[in-house]
């Protein structure tokens, strides 16, 4: 899978986001919220950030 955080938001499908999260977090549990965030100000950032729906700190 390519670097989806470099691509335009509208070019990435929901399925690709899901698969990327599975790979990244090494889990089959779907994520809760997702943010594809790019900006140039104040610094140049290209990012895809996930908030999972569960955690294992108990």
């Amino acid at each position, binding site marked *: 899978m390519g*670097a989806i*955080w*470099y691509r335009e938001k509208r070019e990435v499908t929901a399925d690709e986001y899901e698969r990327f*999260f599975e790979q*990244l*977090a090494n889990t089959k549990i779907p*994520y*809760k*919220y997702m*943010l594809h*965030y790019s*900006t140039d100000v*104040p*610094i*140049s*950032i*290209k*990012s*895809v*950030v*996930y*908030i*999972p*729906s*569960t*955690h294992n700190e108990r």
Partner: protein
Amino acid sequence: MPHYLRFVKGVVDCEDLPLNISRENYQDSGLITKLRNVLTRRVIKLIDDEAKRNADKYAQWYKEFGNFIKEGIAVDQDNKDSLFKLLRFNSVNMGENKSMSLDDYVDKMKEGQEKIYYITSASYKGALTSPYMEPFKGSDLDVLVLVNNVDEILFSQNSEFKGKRFVSIETSFDDIQKDLGKQSEIDSMERSRLPDEEVSPFCLWLKNSLKDKIAKVSISKRLKDTPAIISGNMSSSMRMMMQMMETQG
């Protein structure tokens, strides 16, 4: 990412970062700090937006991750205010299964109400039957129910939200009465039918027999069904915490 947001997963690419970074100088370079600040704010905003879009979905998530947010409030002074908005509480008027944010509470405040009232209790039901709740019965003043000790620590550490002070309903009654309005004052005047000659000796006796333990005895106007109540500057769970600390030395 700051430590309390350790559950966040993702990829962040920043073209301004030098390609060859050795471990020690990337840890606290100014650029990394900037990057972290931007991302932290953005992630908090993401959660806030999603919470507004779908409250039920958020409530579910909050059950799992609420403690991370609370940790954030304790350690992250810069983002404290926006983190406070992410908190959810049960309240007396909303019922046990619905939660509200502090913004909701402030929106529903009565005109002139200046305090955010809360009660701490081990369980939601216990809070409703607490004698401290009595003055609120029959009024439309809402009270937040904190069933988690951590919540109270947050309240007492930060003392206010949007200029409204957090007030435990176990402490001073003066504020409560001001917000409840005159109506209840008249009610309670009619109710106190015991003549002064009988009341004062009783108060004296009570004070003398408990003089090591209490500072003063006063006639309470707040109660309807319960004969007496202990009130203090701290709430009962704070006192419990202090006891715990004492026993641990």
